[in-house]
């Protein structure tokens, strides 16, 4: 049977889980004959795992001691990654639209979404995505007020935004509230609530109250670099959910948030 030769690119894609199942089998066969190459790829796989451990705040928190990383070092690295991702996200709006129209399969899903983002509201999604990538990697202070002080959080954010703002309850979907913070928006303060699931995946809900100049919208989806965002406008409120999770799962969370806002308990 003819088989494409195994290239260095295939070996990296193997480590990163980016090969098709069929190609993976071929690489497995290739490695079975080459122990030193197999050893090299095991080392690369270990690097991926250790890098995630180094940067993943929740993994670090679950370790019993604080010996893991000197706080200052961890902090510097996370700043570096945050800066990198912001730079990408800033450049990504035009890029992802370009990707969609060029028929890149990665973005074919975005094409399938009923509505494309309109220019006048996509700023909301973009700001939410940037706020997500800036604050979600933070370990020591991902939020200003933690979930253990939820009443103070609600009172404070509601006062600053001039409307009652409550964090949606997403426990049934596996997302637990970490807390919230206040951010500067285009025309006033914005609230950001942060959640995480049991694997440490973070999700943010971004709420603005300066959308009265915009028309209401249904759910809209946009991909901002590595972050997926669902957003919608309802009266003066704008909502955006951001996370690095797949669109289907994010859509389930978005529906739950929408329902809670429609029928406050």
């Amino acid at each position, binding site marked *: 049977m003819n088989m494409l030769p195994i290239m260095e690119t295939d070996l990296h894609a193997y480590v*990163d889980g*980016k090969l098709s199942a069929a190609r993976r089998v071929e690489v497995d066969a290739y490695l079975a004959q080459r122990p030193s190459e197999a050893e090299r790829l095991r080392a690369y796989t270990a690097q991926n795992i250790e890098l995630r451990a180094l*940067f993943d705040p929740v993994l670090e928190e679950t370790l019993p001691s604080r010996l893991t990383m000197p706080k200052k*070092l961890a902090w510097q690295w996370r700043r570096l990654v945050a800066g990198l991702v912001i730079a990408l996200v800033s450049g990504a709006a035009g890029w992802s639209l370009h990707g969609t129209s060029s028929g*890149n399969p990665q973005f074919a899903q975005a094409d399938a979404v009923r509505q494309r983002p309109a220019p006048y509201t996509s700023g909301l999604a973009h700001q939410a995505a940037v706020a997500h990538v800036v604050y979600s990697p933070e370990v020591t202070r991902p939020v200003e007020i933690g979930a253990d002080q939820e009443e103070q959080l609600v009172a404070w954010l509601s006062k600053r935004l001039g409307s009652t703002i409550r964090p949606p309850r997403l426990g049934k979907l596996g997302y637990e509230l970490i807390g919230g913070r206040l951010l500067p928006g285009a025309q006033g303060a914005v609230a950001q609530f942060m959640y995480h699931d049991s694997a440490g995946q973070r999700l943010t809900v971004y709420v603005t109250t300066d959308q009265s100049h915009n028309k209401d919208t249904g759910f809209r989806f946009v991909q901002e670099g590595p972050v997926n965002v669902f957003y919608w406008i309802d009266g003066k409120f704008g909502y955006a959910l951001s996370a690095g999770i797949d669109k289907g799962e994010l859509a389930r969370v978005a529906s739950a948030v929408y329902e809670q806002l429609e029928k406050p308990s």
Partner: protein
Amino acid sequence: MAEAHGSLSSALELRDMDTCLRQLSDEQRKILLLVALEEMSYDEIAQVLKIPVGTVMSRLSRAREKLRANMEGRPYASALKVIK
């Protein structure tokens, strides 16, 4: 400190990783972090960094091999092999 034993070896590994990561060039580190942490595809990285995907792959390859050499405490053999 009694509970620290279980995590001590992994803690040391993470500190090693931190040190070794600093020894990569900015370009190598950037691509490695985007691949490992953001799990972006090689094509996506090439597009956002505006470099050919071949350059992404060669930097990734060098970053991983240099990191591996550093973690194992041996000198990194230059990628400039003579190919006959």
